[in-house]
């Protein structure tokens, strides 16, 4: 149904060549291309994906996080990229330890500003280099990080 609408593996191969060892894993579920990258190189990889002439992922569709409390590195940051010229999507993920700072992508895509604020608001993730990291949807005095799995639905 959606084949051809996601990157066909080209981007993953190019990132692998440019940053040896940085692509930790690669998957293709329902035709959706995903790479898991080494958080050390995260910003360089994102900038490469935006600027490389064969990749051209000029558009940050979405930035979000997933909490896996039992994992060694429980915070997954998920970037959904899109290329206007190629008409394909691509997903990049990186895992971080609890409380570890995540480099902010605002310099690469200014639109990441509110998305990162929402991740901070919901998961307590600190984005290093973010110009204005504060709560966005919840009130300033709110305690806790609702989208973390230990946060109860009812109190």
């Amino acid at each position, binding site marked *: *149904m*959606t084949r051809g*609408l996601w990157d066909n593996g080209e981007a993953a191969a190019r990132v692998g060549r440019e940053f040896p060892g940085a692509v930790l894993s690669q998957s293709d*579920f*329902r035709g*959706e291309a*995903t790479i898991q990258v080494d958080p050390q190189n995260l910003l360089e990889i994102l900038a490469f994906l935006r600027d490389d002439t064969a990749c051209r992922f*000029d*558009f*940050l*569709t*979405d930035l*979000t996080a*997933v*909490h896996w409390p039992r994992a060694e590195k429980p915070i997954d940051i*998920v970037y*959904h990229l899109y290329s*206007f010229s190629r*008409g394909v*999507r691509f*997903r990049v993920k990186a895992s971080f330890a609890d409380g570890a700072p995540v480099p902010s992508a605002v310099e690469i*895509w*200014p*639109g*990441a*500003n*509110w*998305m990162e604020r929402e991740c901070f608001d*919901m998961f307590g993730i600190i984005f290093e280099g973010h110009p204005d990291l504060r*709560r*966005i*949807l*919840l*009130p300033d005095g709110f305690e806790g990080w*609702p*989208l973390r799995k230990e*946060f109860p*639905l009812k109190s």
Partner: protein
Amino acid sequence: MTGETHETITLNMGPQHPATHGVLRLVLELDAEVVRSCKADIGYLHRGFEKIAENKTWQQFVTWTDRMDYLAPISNNIGYILAVEKLLDIQVPPRCRELRVILCELARVSAHLLWLGTHALDLGAATVFFYTFQQREILYDIYEKLTGARLTTSGVRIGGMARDIPEGWLDDVSAFVRGVAPVIEESDKLLTRNRIWRNRTENIGILSAEDAVAFSATGPPLRASGIEWDLRKAQPYLGYETYDFEIPCGTVGDVYDRYLVRMEEMRQSLRILRQALARVPDGPINADAPKIVLPPKEKVLTSMEDLIHHFIILTEGIRPPHGEVYHAIEAPKGELGFYLVSDGGPSAYRCRIRPGAMINLQLIEKLVLGHMVSDVISIIGSLDPVMGEVDR
């Protein structure tokens, strides 16, 4: 002049302000009447939808999507359901697909009619509001006939629809399409060449194509800046590639261009609706997937197997495989995406909603700089935020 001090004042606009389209609050720093800085304060309507999704079955969450962009509830339903269906890897029959196209386009017309009425009202043209709201009333009757609700439709099910369309429903839609076309043209006559309207909208809040891309703008604000991009063409779903329609684009990227783009989008939606109405095929409405789609009621009472399926689906819910999918639709406000992560359980492990309205609204802080206070109203209207989706 010596000794003149330049003081700025801070003006608090919203959250209870009729022209901020819901509970949007802007903190403006003004130098006389000119905006020097703007901070948007959102979240007044936050209800924790993404958390709720982790605690409801996949099907139950549909009812929450109604309450996101409440001006186009059924298109949110369909956007979510398409993501779940992608996760499950099931296809719906052609009849269901065409009906969903009709519903999506009706929702677009409905949302744009509301935008047009309120945007014009904000800028002092009250007449348009009455024209457009009259038409929306007819649309609500159409929704009600199909789903039983005017606003909280939830008429879509995983693998199909809640029920097939009632008799005469397609004729009602045809009549609406015939009736709304002259209303759009009349509104166009009232505004497009109106001197006051153009003074209030031209060269106001200009968004360059580079900024639109850098700030992840989608929908009409992106297209008004000259980028011909619409998910219905770029990443077709529901068979949109088989329809004949155009993507309207602007050149300047100001409030006026965003107005023109939405006006033309309504005409293109009517074009799609006419094509869809002419080709709704007969046949089943639900996918043939007994472990996902509820069996018909009469079978539940007569067949043991269907009774079991019915019982399991309603008590335990469906269990999609492990995995993650992202699926987005071209909603009236922009790209509405759902990123679903499944751990094989009866509810989403993570349900991220990519809110087009919120990501577009981010631009407000930039677009109002250097403009007058009254232009802020014009710019808010042109970004068309709906706080139900912004805050979720």
